């Protein structure tokens, strides 16, 4: 038994700690309808590789896997962005009363998800990691394979676009 193995917490403890943040991240990346499948694939992949998950930060590590699963998901669906989810979310936003309670989302949340889904992939992942999964910039960078500065930049650019969409939404509403 190596020192590396000894440093690893029991997988159940790792799962209890990261399940909800990873779920929040995947909801932001692929939408609430497909998030559960991606979540299962993420933690199965993590379990498979777990004994080799030494050193580093387990949190960044599991988000790296989740990010890859989200990209695979989009690729498998034959699109860079989950357009259907965006359209559905936009539809819900425009038609009152929305049936979002089923997903545990308010109409306002749907509008935010829709705007997030329109961001370029790198910015989107960075924004969701920072704000839905509550990672620090260093961890966002580790999870996405960029520098801390790169992560900060991506979040900054993403937020700028989101603010613009929010302003547009407001204009549409008045």
């Amino acid at each position: 038994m190596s020192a590396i193995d000894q440093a690893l917490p029991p997988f159940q403890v790792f799962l209890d700690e990261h399940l909800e943040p990873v779920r929040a991240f995947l909801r932001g990346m692929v939408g609430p309808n497909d998030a559960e499948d991606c979540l299962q694939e993420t933690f199965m992949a993590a379990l498979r590789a777990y004994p080799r998950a030494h050193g580093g930060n387990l949190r960044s590590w599991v988000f790296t896997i989740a990010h890859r699963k989200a990209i695979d998901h989009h690729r498998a669906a034959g699109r860079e962005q989950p357009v259907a989810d965006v359209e559905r979310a936009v539809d819900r936003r425009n038609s009152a009363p929305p049936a979002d309670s089923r997903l545990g989302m308010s109409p306002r949340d749907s509008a935010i998800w829709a705007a997030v889904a329109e961001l370029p992939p790198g910015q989107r992942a960075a924004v969701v990691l920072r704000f839905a999964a509550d990672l620090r910039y260093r961890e966002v960078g580790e999870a996405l394979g960029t520098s801390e500065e790169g992560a900060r930049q991506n979040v900054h650019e993403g937020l700028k676009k989101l603010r613009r969409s929010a302003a547009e939404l407001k204009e549409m509403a008045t």
Partner: protein
Amino acid sequence: MNEFIERLAAQASEEGLLDVAYATVDTPIGEVVVAATDRGLVRVALPGESVDDVLNHLAQGVSPRILAYPKRLDEARRELDQYFEGKRQQFDLPLDWRLSHPGFYRRVLRATARVRFGEVITYTDAAKRAGSPRAFRAAGTALGSNPIPIVVPCHRVVRSGGNIGNYGGGPELKRYLLEHEHAL
């Protein structure tokens, strides 16, 4: 239990990735944690033990691929229920001995596993059955480190002269188990 974790554990088990499954059992002595590998029951933790410590020890001694998966422990839980209800005198479960030190310690535990319900032996008897009659102190240490208490009935080993001796879960628990078995 959390539906997601249940689904994950089931798939992990199916794919041979779940090295240790664990569950809790409510018993008259409190909540007991049971854990099994693909070879059999590997750990029984008495109520005084912290679940975190038990899981960490399993992660280091067996594998960190551990999940709560009560289904793999259905039979162990059923037999423990029956034991505490007074409907079972002998456990019929495959055991995984890997958390006990191979050699003398494990021989002591294997010998103890054959002591029957309602009987008691002394530490000297246990040492003798493990092949080293004079090593009664070491036998006591071996029994104190028993990873599978109750099922491997180390509570049935007592001091000569009437004192029931030590027990991992405390002497009161040892007395409770022996009285339950009408051995006192």
